[in-house]
Each structure stands twice: as structure tokens, then as C-alpha cells.
């Protein structure tokens, strides 16, 4: 029967039942969410980066009268400009809301003179403003001097790569790429080495105080990335206590950024490398020992190759975190420009949204590359994990343990030190001159930046992000994992869910401006509200939650759904009664992850907050910007304590759930 061929005809397709329809509807809704909250804004940004606005002087014609009211011959603005040389090509480049006063073409203009002016478009698209009134016509319009001075030409839009060529020919902007890469590479090397030593000590030695070190190592996750910057300023800044240690170098610039980056990326690298080291196979080490390989050789031939995927992955994650970080260079970067700062400056400082979009696209490239490499590596790591191996058992070795203790001790002092400096600075009258304790820096309502409202707003944002985010993320992951058929739809959804990881916060924030601030967008109403902050934060941190949920869901028996449907029970009953309870630990993990990140994030929301939705993390930034460093440190520590409290609650809740579920998790 090997020659059997499938008879012609159409493949049997099952009728869609209610369950299937509901599942698809759910997935469609969440996919729609991701499209609106991610794909469309990114698209808006991308297309914006190809748009240029410039004044096209050939499109306008003027006529001027003498004092008696007799008009001379019409002349195009271009011709006048060629004659007078008022504007060069650079001056004519503009942004979407640029304006060019018509009077500039008439050096003798005086609004008191009886001279009259006429203006018209030479073609169909020649916009100009009379006051606020937009005109676009080839009809002559006549104005007296007093009105004419209120006439402004408007730029016209064209599409092309002009922004990019401008960007790459601007040495100041272009040098930011070098700076960003330089900072990211140095920080990555330092962080990975530091984290490797730390992870190695935790996993491969009998060092004491492991619990304490683990706790300290995770602390940087609880604070905004700009907090170490503030601490460094206190220590090594212009009035720093330890400024002399800098030996004439300035902490404002690459040195400060690198040290701060090591601080805030350290826990991320540590988690990845620690996971890689924890799956070591005892047998390999026994084999190496039986071959009388030296410790040093064993390290290079067994340990490093075994952990290589973890190391590569940690390096790429760190690189991405550093190159896309905005808070730290903002606080301590001084005159040292990096890409993330350029976006901020172009958008907030110069209102040049198109150029901001170009820098965003440039920043997107390394982030996307790092993301792709990381995904490939992660896949390999998973297959390593599933291999059956005997866990590694470290042997006592006094010298080695002392060495480990030293390494971890140094890192702990570094991390705790920076946090304590912040706390101390926040609690003293006036660093470093009056070190008596005071709570005045906590009186946020007396400084600019949003006051205590900013703090409560942040809590609100974090809670909403945790609740709605977990709901969306987990439901989405469930639909991807447990829906049958509908392959293309699931593939697309999976892609959308992975995408946020590759998109830096700054880029997302800017993309939101383009998309949601467009008056033509019906969703425009959420611009400037808490909703847009929640949406952007959920989207920004979507991927990690999605992956956590998928991992948990994959561990559930795939046969539950068929069983439930053979028992004629709707899937949502199974979902509520079984899936959610079984996945509760993962669900809690997702929500605490979203909460903590919503408390600390700066990059996306810095473009999106409004006066009544200021946030604690943004307040830290703004207070620091305004020179109120002590209140900034105080606010930063408020974030730290809030997150630490949330983590504690999370731990207690997880414990309780674990205890309750122990009975059914088996003997």
C-alpha cells in the first residue's frame, strides 16, 4: 500500500463550536490589543522617520503695492529669497509645526505703512496661516500691513530618506552611536565578569551567607536605573565626598554611566548566568578529575563551555539594557551624548519628532539584533536543561571559599553602598555640609516634579499594570498554547508577543506620541491619561510575562482540554477551576514583575505623562534635572521601599499558596 495516494478532495474541517469561537474571539481581542498598542505605533514611528517638512518657497507668490495702492508685478517667494538671501537651505528645513513669517521677505515691512500685500499659492499645496486660519489657495488674497505681519508660511510634507542622510551627516548625532556602543560594550564586559564570579560563588562553592548575597544582588531591580547615578553624584560628583578618588576625572560622563550600568544590569545578568551554572553535570567534573586535569583547566574546558549559552545570553541582555537605558545617562551623562538621550533631546528639547523617530530606528537596530541572538541562544539552552544530569556537589576548599566571599563581598558593598548613600543623602539636611538628620527632603510637595501625587500615581500605575497586565498576558498565553488549529493566527500572535522585548522603552514612548497624539486617531482620547501609561507599561514588559506564562502552561498536561471537552464542559470552566489554580505561582510572578517594573520605569512613560499623571520615577528624573538631588534620592528610595514591600507580600502570598497546594502537588 506504499503507492497509496490521498484521494482528491478537500480536507475535513470541524465545525467551530462555541468554545472554539470564544477562544478565537479572545485571541483576536488580545492580538488586537497588541496591534494597537505595539504594531501600529511602531509603524507610525517608522513612517514618521521618513517624513520631512520643509518650506517650499516656489509655491508662494507675493505682490506688493506702493503707498497709493498700485500693485507691482507678482514675484515668487523663491525669487525674492534668491535676491535677498534671507534663508539658506538649512533654514528652510522644518518640522510638522514649523512657521515662517511672510514679512521676512520684505525688509522694508512696517505694519504702520499703507502698503498692501497680496499672496497666493502657485500650485495646489501651498499652505499658509493668517493668524490661526489656515489658507491653501491659488486665489490672490489681499492684506494690509497689520494683518500681513500675522501671515506665516507652513512647511509641506515630503517622504524620503532625507532625515536619515541628515542624521548620518551630523557628526554630533553620529558620535552618539559610537558613545552608546562604547558604553554598552564596556558595561557588558564588566557586568558579565562580575555576575559570573558571583554566580560561580553561589553555585560552585560552599561559601557562607549565600542567602544574604542573593538578596542583595536582586536589590537593583527594585530601583529606577537612574538611582545609582544619583548615588554616584553624591560620592564622586562636584561636592562628592570621595571626589579625590577620581584623580581628576569627572564622574559625569562615561565613567559614571558605566558604573551605574553595572549596578542596574547586574541582577539581570546574574539570574541568567546562575541558571546556566546550576545545570552543571557532576559527572563531567568527575571525569575531568579522573583525568587529573588541573582546576584551572577544568574551568576552561568544562565550566565555561557548559555555561557558554548563559554567558552569551547574559551579555546580549546586558548590552540591550545599557544601550537602551535613558535614566542613567540623563542623570550622570553630563555632556556625553548617547542614543537614548538624543531621542529625548530631539523630542522634548527641540520638538523635532521626525529626527527623534530616526534616532529611534537607529536604536532599534542593535536592540533587535541582540534580541534575535538571545532567542537563538535561549532555544539551545532549553535543550541543555532537559538533559538528565547529576547536579554538581561542591567540595569544601577554604582558600576558594575565601576568594568567593571576597568577590561577593565586594559586589554586595558596591550595591548596598550605593543604595545606602542614596538613603543617607535623602535623610540629611544638606549633603555634605550639614549631615544632621531631617525629613525635609520627603516633603515632595515643596519641590517640582509632581509631589506626593507622583508617588500615588505610580502606585496606581503599578497596581493597574499588575492586574490588567497579568490578565492580558496570561489569557493571551493560554490562547496561544491551548487553542487547537488556527496555526497562522497563533504564529502571528506569538511574534507580536515577543516583539516588545526588542523595542526599547524610549522607542515605544515616542511611537505612542506619533500614534495616539494624532488627532485623527479615535484613540486620541487616552493621550495624557493614566490609561496610556498603563497600556504602554503593559506592552513594554509584555514579553517576559508571556514567556513565564507559556513555561507554566507547557507544564500542564496537554490532555486536560480534550478531557474537559469530552466531558462537555466549556474551556473557561477548566480554565478557572484547573488551569489558573495550577498556574497561580507563575501568575503571581508575572504580576510582581509587572508591578516592580511599572514602579521603576522611566523610558517609555517619560514621553507620555501629563501634569496630573506624573510618576515617582519621572519625578526623580525631573527633580534631579532641577537640581533637587536630595528629594530625588528620597523619592527613589520610596520606590525602593514600595517595591521591597511588594516583593515581601508576593513572597508571603507564594508561600501560602505553596503550602495550600502542597497537599495536591503530591508526596
Amino acid at each position, binding site marked *: *500500500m*506504499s503507492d*497509496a495516494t*490521498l*484521494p482528491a*478532495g478537500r*480536507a*475535513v*474541517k*470541524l*465545525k*467551530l*463550536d*462555541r*468554545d*472554539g469561537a470564544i477562544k478565537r474571539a479572545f485571541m483576536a481581542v488580545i492580538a488586537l490589543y497588541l496591534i494597537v498598542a505595539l504594531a501600529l505605533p511602531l509603524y507610525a514611528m517608522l513612517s514618521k522617520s521618513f517624513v520631512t517638512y520643509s518650506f517650499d518657497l516656489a509655491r508662494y507668490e507675493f505682490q506688493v503695492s506702493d503707498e497709493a495702492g498700485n500693485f507691482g508685478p507678482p514675484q515668487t517667494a523663491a525669487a525674492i529669497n534668491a535676491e535677498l538671501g534671507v534663508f539658506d537651505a538649512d533654514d528652510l528645513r522644518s518640522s510638522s509645526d514649523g512657521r515662517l513669517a511672510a514679512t521676512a521677505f520684505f525688509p522694508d515691512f512696517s505694519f504702520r505703512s499703507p502698503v498692501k500685500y497680496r499672496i497666493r499659492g502657485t500650485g495646489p499645496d501651498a499652505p499658509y496661516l493668517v493668524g490661526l486660519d489656515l489658507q491653501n489657495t491659488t486665489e490672490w488674497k489681499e492684506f494690509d500691513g497689520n494683518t500681513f505681519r500675522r501671515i506665516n508660511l507652513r512647511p509641506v510634507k515630503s517622504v524620503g530618506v532625507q532625515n536619515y542622510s541628515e542624521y548620518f551627516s551630523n557628526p554630533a548625532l553620529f558620535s552618539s552611536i559610537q558613545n552608546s556602543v562604547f558604553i554598552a560594550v564596556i558595561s557588558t564586559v564588566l557586568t558579565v565578569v562580575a555576575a559570573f564570579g558571583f554566580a560561580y560563588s553561589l553555585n560552585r562553592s560552599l561559601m557562607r551567607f549565600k542567602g544574604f548575597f542573593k538578596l542583595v544582588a536582586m536589590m537593583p531591580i527594585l530601583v529606577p536605573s537612574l538611582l545609582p547615578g544619583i548615588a554616584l553624584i553624591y560620592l564622586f560628583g562636584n561636592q562628592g565626598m570621595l571626589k579625590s578618588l577620581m584623580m581628576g576625572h569627572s564622574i559625569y560622563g562615561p565613567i559614571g554611566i558605566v558604573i551605574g550600568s553595572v549596578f542596574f544590569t547586574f541582577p539581570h545578568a546574574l539570574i541568567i548566568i546562575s541558571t546556566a551554572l546550576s545545570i552543571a553535570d557532576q559527572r563531567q567534573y568527575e571525569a575531568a578529575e579522573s583525568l587529573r586535569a588541573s582546576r584551572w583547566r577544568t574551568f576552561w574546558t568544562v565550566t565555561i563551555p557548559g555555561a557558554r549559552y548563559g554567558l552569551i545570553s547574559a551579555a546580549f541582555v546586558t548590552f540591550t539594557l545599557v544601550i537602551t537605558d535613558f535614566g542613567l545617562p540623563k542623570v550622570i551623562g553630563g555632556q556625553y551624548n548617547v542614543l537614548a538621550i538624543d531621542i529625548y533631546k530631539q523630542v522634548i528639547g527641540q520638538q523635532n519628532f521626525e529626527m527623534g523617530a530616526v534616532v529611534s530606528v537607529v536604536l532599534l537596530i542593535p536592540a533587535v539584533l541582540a534580541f534575535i541572538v538571545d532567542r537563538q541562544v535561549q532555544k539551545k539552552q532549553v535543550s541543555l536543561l532537559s538533559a538528565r544530569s547529576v547536579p554538581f556537589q561542591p567540595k569544601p576548599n577554604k582558600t576558594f571559599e575565601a576568594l568567593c566571599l571576597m568577590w561577593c563581598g565586594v559586589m554586595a558593598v558596591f550595591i548596598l553602598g550605593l543604595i545606602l548613600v542614596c538613603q543617607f543623602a535623602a535623610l540629611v539636611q544638606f549633603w555634605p555640609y550639614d549631615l544632621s538628620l531631617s525629613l525635609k527632603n520627603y516633603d515632595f510637595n515643596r519641590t517640582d516634579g509632581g509631589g506626593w501625587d507622583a508617588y500615588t500615581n505610580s502606585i496606581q500605575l503599578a497596581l493597574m499594570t499588575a492586574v490588567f497586565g497579568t490578565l492580558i498576558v496570561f489569557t493571551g498565553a493560554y490562547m496561544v498554547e491551548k487553542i*487547537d488549529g488556527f496555526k497562522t493566527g497563533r504564529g502571528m500572535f506569538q511574534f507580536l508577543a515577543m516583539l516588545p522585548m526588542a523595542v526599547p522603552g524610549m522607542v515605544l514612548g515616542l511611537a505612542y506620541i506619533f500614534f495616539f497624539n494624532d488627532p485623527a486617531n479615535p484613540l486620541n482620547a487616552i493621550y495624557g491619561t493614566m490609561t496610556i501609561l498603563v497600556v504602554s507599561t503593559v506592552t513594554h514588559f509584555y514579553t517576559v510575562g508571556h514567556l513565564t506564562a507559556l513555561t507554566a502552561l507547557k507544564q500542564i*498536561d496537554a*490532555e*486536560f482540554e*480534550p*478531557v*474537559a*471537552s*469530552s*466531558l*462537555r*464542559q*466549556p474551556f473557561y*470552566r477548566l480554565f478557572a*477551576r*484547573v488551569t489558573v*489554580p*495550577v498556574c497561580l505561582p507563575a501568575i503571581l510572578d508575572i504580576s510582581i514583575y509587572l508591578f516592580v517594573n511599572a514602579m521603576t520605569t522611566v523610558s517609555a512613560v517619560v514621553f507620555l505623562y501629563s501634569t496630573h499623571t506624573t510618576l515617582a520615577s519621572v519625578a526623580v528624573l525631573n527633580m534631579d534635572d532641577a537640581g533637587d538631588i536630595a528629594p530625588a534620592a528620597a523619592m527613589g528610595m520610596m520606590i525602593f521601599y514600595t517595591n521591597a514591600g511588594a516583593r515581601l507580600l508576593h513572597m508571603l502570598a507564594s508561600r501560602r499558596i505553596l503550602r495550600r*497546594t502542597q*497537599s*495536591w*502537588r*503530591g*508526596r
Partner: protein
Amino acid sequence: MPNNADAYLEIKDLWKAFGVFLALKDINLVIGKGEFVCFLGPSGCGKTTLLRAVAGLDPQTRGQIHQGGQDISNLPTSKRDYGIVFQSYALFPNLTVARNIAFGLENTGRPKQEIKTRVADLLALVGLPEQAEKYPAQLSGGQQQRIALARAIAIDPGLLLLDEPLSALDAKVRVHLRHEIKELQRKLGVTTIMVTHDQEEALSMADRIVVMNHGTVEQVGTPTEIYRQPATLFVADFIGETNKVATTYSGGRVTLGSVSLSTEMKGVAEGASVTVAVRPEDVVPHLSTEAGEGAANLLPAQLVDMEFLGSFWRCRLQSDILGGQELIANFSINAVRRLDLKPGLDMAVELPAERVLVFAEGA
């Protein structure tokens, strides 16, 4: 084949393709009401695929399935009428045994008390009345299996599907549960399909066995039919043990070296290349060709060695007529004692004509 009048499940011209790979090729099958049918075949032959098509979990590519007179070919799972037990049992870990069994009963408008009684009845039926409040993880594999069964039959399904329900259990529990499941099925009278690759399981439990190979049905029949009259060489080889020799067929006889054997097999083309198959237990021992006078189909052979397997002796024999090929025979303890068989003995074996199976090449 059961009488078509009481046909319950009909599978017609069914094909399943995974990409270009054909996992099922033109399956036709009728299962009667109340029948216990086993899908049996080597790993990868498509048993699970066929079961999943019946359940609507992984629909067939072509063909139709009728259940109880209704065309269910493109009905979604939830609209079909069956209970299912998987190899993993798929018990909900966070629900007690009672809640697991009640899962399909709740949410149907039945009063609470009725559900409670029904769950208690079911627990008694599967012999675990004391375990209602335990969680699945606190039960043994065999107990979990019975709970999964109770949950599947709780809703009185018209069809019970079992995918290798016993393969995760150890041998002893497995033999015990075989019996229990069969008993239960008989009591309930529910039409049942069980997938297995364990022939002993199939032979001992099934009313009829569907032997599958490479996505096709090789033979459908009762255990005795399958065993005594295998339709193809594959079936003869797969079910039980068999001695095989390649030769040709002519005039109702096959020739092995200088000996010509008669056979009762019909429908083999004259002069065709064939394979002769004889089961070890069908080989009859004689002291010599002369001693077996009256008997046809006698071969001289030497007893190479013997192995005592409790209820019989397993013997390896060699015969010049078969060339280098060995003949395996199972001799009864009686026969061995009576004939005083010992390794190294020159003797004769009889291959009874009605037990000599002949399969044309490619069949």
C-alpha cells in the same frame, strides 16, 4: 464482522495526512454496539491517530465517521458523545478524586445530591470507595487509572476511548486492571475502543482486534481468528510467534528441500513465491519419521537445545531440509517426558497441514 444492523461506529474511506506523510490510508471499519475493540499495531502505525480522529481531536483529512447513525465527520469534540482516558490519565491535580469524577456532572443542572450519589456509585464501581477526598497525587498509578475511567464514564458516554490506558503501569497491576476494565465494560455495555501495542492485552480483552500497520488495517477479527487465521504474514508475525520459510506454491503443496508439505490454505496463485509460516505450538514432535507413520508433513530434525518455560518446553531444532534456518517449537511437558526428548537427539517434527499457513509474497 458484526451484523450491520447493530453497527454503532462506522469509519468510511478515512485518510489522514500530516503534510505529505500519510498516517492513515483508506481505513474502513464497522464497530458494533457494545463491542470492545482493540487497535493493535507496532509503534507509529497510526493507532492513536485513528482514535484522535474518532474523538475529533485531530480530524481526518478525508473520509467519514458515523456514530449511532449520525454523521459526526466534522462535529467538534464537544458535540460528540464519548468519554476518553489517556495514557497520562490527565486527572486534574488540584481537584480531589470526587471533584475530578464530578467534573462532567456539575454544570449540567443536576441537583447536588444526585451528583454526590453518582460519584459514590462510580467510586464503588471502580473499587475505590474510600478515596473520594484524596488528591490524585496521593494515589497509585493503578488507582489514578481507575479514577480517570470513572470520570470518563460518569457522563454515560455512548463510546469509550482508551489510549494505551495501561502502559504506564507495572506488569502485575496491568494484568489485574485488564480484567477489571473488561468486566466494567461488560457491565456497562458501552462500546469501547482501546489502543494498545501490547498483543497480550488485546488478545485477552478485545471482542475484536483491528491489527494495523503503516497506516492501514491488516486484519479485523476476533482474537482467535487473528491468532489462528492471520490474514497476512505481518499479522502472523506480529501476533504470537511464528517460524517462516520462503518457498513456492503449487497444487496445494509447498516444497521445503526434498520434502513437500500439503496445506489447506486457499486462494494462492499457482507457482507463486510464498512464505510458509508455522507457529511453535503447532509443531508436533515424533521420535523419527518412521515413528510418525500415518502423519503427513514430516521433517527430520535435530534437537539443538531446550529451555523450560514452566508450562512447556521451548525447543530449537535444526533440519538439513531447512538449510541453516532454525525451527522453534513449543513441546508440552507431557510430550517431552513421553518421548524422552533431550538436546542432541535426532528426531522428526510434524507440521500439520491445517496449521501450515501460506502467504503469497507481498500479502
